């Protein structure tokens, strides 16, 4: 059970949050101009890596804000949390 540092509320138990999958996948601005393959890339393709992963999280039972998290999936270490639209402090 993680202890997550919500960028708006501070440290809270994981049970207050829900994970929204891989971060930094931007919805195409002009979907109609994409081929089936390009659209499928956006729609379906998600990474599931062992190691450092960038994820979207939502403080669902709290401020309801979405934010990003850098987590090592092999040991659940959280390296950073940052607001939507901000650049990741870790490359």
């Amino acid at each position, binding site marked *: *059970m993680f*202890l997550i540092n919500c960028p708006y509320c501070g440290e809270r*138990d994981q049970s207050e949050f829900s994970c929204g999958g891989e971060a930094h996948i931007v919805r*195409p601005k002009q979907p109609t101009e994409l081929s*089936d393959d390009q659209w*499928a890339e956006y*729609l379906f393709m998600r990474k599931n890596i062992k190691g450092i992963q960038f994820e979207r999280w939502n403080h669902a039972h709290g401020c309801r804000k*979405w934010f990003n998290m850098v987590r090592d999936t092999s040991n659940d270490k959280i390296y950073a949390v940052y607001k*939507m639209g901000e650049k990741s402090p870790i490359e």
Partner: protein
Amino acid sequence: MIKYRVNKTKHVDQTKTVSFDFDGKSYHGFDGDTLASALLSNGVHLVGRSFKYHRPRGIMSSGSEEPNAICQINENTDLTEPNVRATEIELYEGLKASSQNCWPSVNFDIGGINNFISPFIPAGFYYKTFMWPKNFWKKIYEPLIRWSAGLGKSPTKPDPELYDHKHVHCDVLIIGGGISGIIASKIASKNNLKTILIEDKNILGGSTIFQKNENYKINNKYSGEWIDEEIAELKKLDNLTIKTRTSLAAYHSYNYLLAKENISDHLPLDKRNGDIRQRLWKIRADKVIVATGAIERPLVFNNNDRPGIMLANSVKKYLDFYGVSCGFNNVIFTNNDSAYETAVSLKEKGISVEIIDIRKKSNSKIVKNAEKLGVKIYWNSTVVNTFGHRKINSIEIMNLSEDGSNIVGDKNKINCDCLAVSGGWTPMVHMHTQSGGKLDFRENDQTFIPTEIDENHINVGSCNGDFELEEIINNTNKKVKNFLKVSETEFDNTSVLNSKELDKRNIWLLPNYISEGKCKSFIDFQNDSTAKDIKLALREGFKSIEHVKRYTTTGMATDQGKLSNMHALGIIADTAGVKMGTLGTTTFRPPFTPLTFGSIVGRSVGKFFDIIRKTSIHEWHSQNNAKFENVGQWKRPWYYPVNDEGLHDAVQRESKAARDSAGILDASTLGKIDIQGTDSSEFLNRVYTNAWSKLGIGKCRYGLMLNEDGMVYDDGVTTRLGENHYLMTTTTGGAANVLSKLEDYLQTEWPELDVYLTSVTDHYSTASICGPNSKKILTKIFPDKDFSDEAFPHMSYQNAKIDEINCRIMRISFTGELSYEINIESKYGKSLWEKCIEVGKEFKITPYGTETMHLLRAEKGFIIVGQDTDGTMTPIDLQMDWIVSKKKYDFIGKRSLYRSDTIREDRKQLVGLLTDDPNEVLEEGAQIVSDINKKPIEMIGHVTSSYFSPNLNKSIALAVVKSGKKMNGQKLIVPMENKKINVIVSDTVFLDKENKRINA
């Protein structure tokens, strides 16, 4: 009767007699006993039968690692519990316990025949045997396996006891109240840290507390005396919470731990007073110190499982802690020095003991001590066989060869009534590995020890591989100081005297003169897996320890391999000729010891199991005989039976009334989202498939929402309340998810939009009135209002007042009838409803529930998202092309509507179905086929909604069928178990295609 209680100790009060029953026979023990110590004091060793071979088994240990002495307690009561370890349960007056896995009794067990046919039931026996003949499976094999599977009996009645959960935070959590846990607790709490110490026994002190040996002294006191004084001081410390009878169940990441406290399990049933039985502590600790100690290992030799064969340190504990001698003619079989402490204790009390040691020598102080007391020691020897059916009576020993791989010389028979074995010690690294920690293998004593990886967690004491008193005290002190950043402690200059072990020898599987195939050398006692089984698994090609474990079931019993895993690994390593450290271990998963379901669920039982949501009109529904159905967490009126009407009759009556005169529905549960902001129209354009910019203020519009994959997600009517103000309705079940999804898009994809969303589902109650007389009823409720079609057309909204209370009236329809929805602040919901009923009386207004609502909308061909759709339906599949804007540049899911998969013409599409026999009602979910003769029969679709329509006087159904759009008028078949139903594909709208009723 022989008196096994030979010793007076302060831990058992021999003035307080406690009577209890075991297997229907009455016995006496004393206050302070466990069930196991009380049984042993009565000379009872045989307490159970093993799982597979039904071999007689006795008490083996004194703690949570016990594989044999597991009992059913309080059988035939509500409180009965299986698989209780006799070594852990504290004795109380009136306790009733019985053996498991034996029939008819533990002394004579028919299943014991398995022991004689054991050559035919090796590892993997189930997988190999029950394959053929095929028709034996259902009638013979399955019932037989089910009868013999499982240990003990589950309670059949609801658990009458109360369980609790508690959340706590602390600076330091210490797991284990033995010597290192006590040192750590003292250092932590004396340095102003909020500390919690948990211990699974009822007292602190671990195995040091019964230590009174001149070779082990701390500050010139017996270590047992020293620790008594430490405990007394500990109890005076302010910021230390000591929780005894509390066992750690799980160690999760970020120092989140679960511990189960037994509150009333040790009390007689009549003294429990309905108090909480167990409490699950949910602890978030800044730092965790694990001091869980070590478990003694058995040795693996032929017939090493007879009652009377026990762990050496447990024999010592029964003697020095409980005052019970497990035998009067003891033999100790060991590979290390620690068992000599048991020998010294026995000898000092005048009890006969001899030692068989696989080592060639040992010159430590404790060994010399034993020799001086006259204990006979057989060096370089091993036990090769044991005898005695229900209890051990003798053993055979032989000398070991130089390298220990074989035996030499003659057999020597020794009589005994207790064989105390010790194969060394295994650190309890469960907690460390559960938290994500890794292990290193230490060659010299063949142990896995923790490697520290986390700055907020350390292991101290023997769970860290420190087995000698001096190491334990000094290393614990040093590690805790570093960990908590403390510069000095009272333990800095502790003088410790202990015997040092210098000679070690380990043989995982002891050699024998009997051929390997005929030896019963048990590794997992409860599951009866032997060394032979492990070797068989290796021969059959299993290599991974995880696979060998599952194939042989080693380590899969209720003790989860606490005694067996190391030997299994050792034998695999020896057989395969690899280094043990390279094999890794099986995964240690929580819980460490079994948890009750009660403690897991806590108070969340019965009506607290889930939230129940009721509308403000709920009371009226109850009083008017409504039957309710669950829709998400909501209770919605399902139908309102009159007199003894059933569902069908009530729904037929309600449906007819709604079309003939007037019906009223509580629609309060529909999700409602208030949308405000200057970009609200643009926002709706992006989330719905149709266009919203031109919707006038005061108008309503139906919208369909897709997922990005183009599949229908939700639907509902949205009303424009003002220039920048909308009220969206969603399906009842989808409300929360729709809000979350919209918030997600707003926050992450379109942060530039000025839009604010608020859930107002609970703020408003809604009465929906439909039917040809609804306009008249509304006119009576709101006499000042003009309800003419010109002033108040279909799909529009107006504000109104009832007495001084503001309402919103929407003229919208989900039934195809003329229909109005009145929204009012929830606190007035019931009075609004009662007013509608009162005013509607002259028009025979009929309250209807969800079932009638479903029927009415199906007559009109309106879909229900989640019933007629299942996450694979596009609007095109639903024949709702009209709602998909061709002009809009983008909306959620638009691009997906012309992917190669979504434009396929043979997708399943929504159609109507009419049965040839108008009285035949299809079953929802039934499969649909077109050609019943062509095998295999192709299922081309299924029925999604089906009703008997009282208004059309025939059966109607909606279905999804491959290429259904092109099939209008085509005959299909719905095959059922006993018949084939002929149907014809129709339009989805069955009633009033011209919309005359809505505009009536």
